[in-house]
């Protein structure tokens, strides 16, 4: 089971993206679990994460999160703006999976 965490500033926009990603997960029958978390709640949800993706608007968290997560072997990246903006679940999921593979 791969745990993907999506972070945005107040959880407004990511939930839809998570839905779309989940749709793809179902179609392809993947063993992936995706959660959307607001920036303020990251700390309390950090244990069960394998890949962390940041919304573009919380890009400023990147250095901090990398420092926190990469030692644990968790890759952290910012989602591509257009994929994010078009709510392209498939592409974002692919990106997350590719990050997980690199490990």
């Amino acid at each position: 089971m791969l745990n993907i965490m999506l972070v945005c500033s107040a959880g407004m926009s990511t939930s839809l993206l998570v839905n779309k990603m989940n749709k793809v997960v179902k179609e392809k029958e993947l063993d992936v679990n995706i959660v959307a978390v607001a920036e303020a709640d990251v700390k309390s949800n950090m244990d069960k994460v394998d890949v962390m993706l940041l919304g573009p608007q919380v890009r400023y968290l990147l250095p901090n999160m990398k420092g926190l997560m990469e030692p644990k072997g968790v890759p952290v990246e910012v989602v591509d703006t257009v994929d994010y903006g078009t709510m392209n679940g498939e592409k974002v999921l692919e990106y997350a999976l590719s990050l997980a593979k690199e490990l």
Partner: protein
Amino acid sequence: MSRIKEVLDTLERLREENPEGISAIDVAQILDIDRSNISRYLNILYRDGKVEKLEGRPVLYRTIDIEKDTFKERNTPISKNKNSLDKMVGANQSLAISIDKAKAAIMYPPKGLHTLILGETGVGKSMFAELMYQFSIETNILGKDAPFIRFNCADYASNQNLLTAQIFGVKKGAYTGATKDREGLLKKADGGFIFLDEIHRLSPQGQEMLFTYIDNGFFRPLGETENLSYVDVRIIAATTEDPKSNLLKTFTRRIPMVITLPPIRDRGLSERYDFIETFIKEESHRLGKSIYINKNAIISYLLYDCPNNIGQLKSDIQLACAKAFLNYKSQNNNYILITQCDLPNHVKKGIMNINQYRNEVEQLLNFNYDILKFNQSEKPPLLMEIDKYTTEDFYNSIEEKLKSLKNMGISEQDINEIINIDIETHFKEYIGSISRHFHKEEISNIVDNKILEVVEEILLLGEKKLNKHFSEKVYFALSFHLERSINRIKNGEKIYNPKLNFIRINYEEEFLFAMKITRIIDERFGIETPVDEIGYLAMFFATDSYKFDKVEVPKVGILVIMHGKTTASSMVEVANSLIGTDHAIALDMPLNMKPETMYSIAKRKVEEINKGEGVIILVDMGSLTTFGDMIWEETGIEVRTIEMVSTSMVLEVLRKSIVGYSIDEIMEAFKNKHVYKYRSNVLEEGNNIKDIIVTACFTGDGASKKIANIIGKEISNKNIDIFTINIIDENNLENRLYKLKDKYNILAIISTISLDISWAPVFLAVDIFTNEGIDKLNNVFEENEMCLKISQSLTEHLPNIKDKKIVKEIRYILYEVEYKLGLKVSIDVRMGIMLHICFLIDNLIKGVIPRKFNDLEEYKKTYKKEMKILREIFSPIENKYEIVIGENEIGYILKTFLSNQISVY
């Protein structure tokens, strides 16, 4: 000249016999020259330091005693060996840095640096400029004959052609009214300094001409086509503008040296004391008499609120000196003494602050006697050219008037009163604007300046005639009232005052006074004030004694209801306290309160405050706007609603209600007033709108066309149109851009001068010609394409937002946020925030309750200004979608911007 020499010789010759000095009459008899001429010569000699005046009647003159003279020099060693700049008050303290900078600007090789002086009204910018000039002569950087040209851009601000012509000169026929060639001041200042005060009043065209000179050393007079004028002039510009203002950024970028002069409140009491001392000494020097001043009066001068700074302090001191001089003359006193009574009202209040500053004051005035003497023989450290317009002539005129009034047999008390009025009118400019300085700033946004001036004049007169002190409240209310009624009269609308007879009988004095001042109003505004209006004016003058409640018909009730925990109550508190009443009532509607609950509270309140005249409800937006009609239907009480309330609206309604306007009369002013402002900010419904770039220059034909050509090549493969427009009048410009914005999607504006446009990127034409500028422009295109893609797929995910242009709409808003917060975020962050806001709006329409922001109160305190800016920017969106974004979400948005900022403008 030889006559003057003759007078001097005579004085010298007779010195031995008349050690006490000789009067002008004696000299006139000896030389057989007209006495008034002799007096003039003596004054010149006195001014040149060749003779001294001795106290007494008649004034006696004698040549200056060499020994005493040396003593004097010893006594004031400061003035020796020091240059003009270092003699300034605070030269070693608050002005130290400014003076260093000034010297650097003057000495910077090869020709010095142009300088911009910033500071509030009255901090001494002109004086500083003049001292810089003197310094450069003292240090032989400029020759003795170097010119110093002073020019105030505000003097010609209403005629920009004339203004530019004054500075740069003009060729015959350059514009209507330019009937002959004329040399400009810049030319006259060749080899010296030009001091351009209130530089912000210079038109964009004038600015460009000035910058051309700064950059290249030449300029072209208006209408001159062939020859360039080369001059060598050091420019000192000055302005009261906020250094952060956009306009000023243009100047600070082009003018290398910027010197900021501190306001008097930041300069400490000891410097303030030095000023007081200097100014009294100056007056004493002018009068040729010592001036005594009561200790309490000095304390008042040290501690009163002095918003117009040193200039105000000086005129407030001059006023007191003039009054003291009058007493001395009319009552044949032996000395000129300034007491508390001679101080202007607002200065007198200074002593009330003594508890707060007792220790400091005691340290400063470290002596036991109650009266201080400023000896005429002590020269003030600096006597400025600038002061010439308030010279001894003013004292002479007091003296002459006193004499002639006495000859006419007028009683002493009346004479004093008459001359006191003269003195105060002389200083009126200061007193009027000063005592009401605080609110004037605020009101001038709402009420025409011309009206404010008249009201000041009227109240000043009123204070004399009716012998009462009018509070700022009256000033405020009367300004407000007058503006409205002048408009009514001009439009031929009727004014009816139901209390007219009551006022006429019970407030006769005020009514008579109102009749008198009506003449001023009629003359100034070209109207004929009807008697009913005179009645209203009289009510203002009687405000403090007139108890409306007891006799007045019931007033229209006022209820302010707004979203937010304290928004309505704080607005009402301001309005009530300014008008001096508790008539307006506030209802706060917390965000989690249901409209139904609020409705029943509002209904009860309306029933409670209705006194038969109806109730006006002022609301911000949303469901609240419907309350009025519903209550009216249910209760039968006449209820009117005003939407998008602001403090100034509450004030206007409240003020009118208090003086007894009917509900219809009050509502009339709001017929069309409040709608426009918001509409233009929101895109119209519509499908495909075209992307455009706007290029702007003065003519709309020259530079902007050229830019269009260049850009055109860059974007030939993109589906973008270019619009060229002219910038004749900047206000109008914004409106024209709004209109374009309604029809098209403005990607960027490229202009020859910087524009104060917040909602779209503005590039300077100059920058576009560099690679960096093109890169920036390309970023804009890139972002736009991103927007387009996102917009196409996004709108299907926003089920509750009908307007498909939401993405572009938000994009404007994000530019505005960046501009107004003075920061930038990267494109992807901006996109992210945009998405966030789109979903937020969608959710809010759906009725989802926003999340809480941790420690919101703390955050709001830290970022008070920023929160306010954001709330304002988002208010058109709130109105359009009938939602309340709320402080929690605003907090999130602000935080995202602040955390992601990449650079500061």
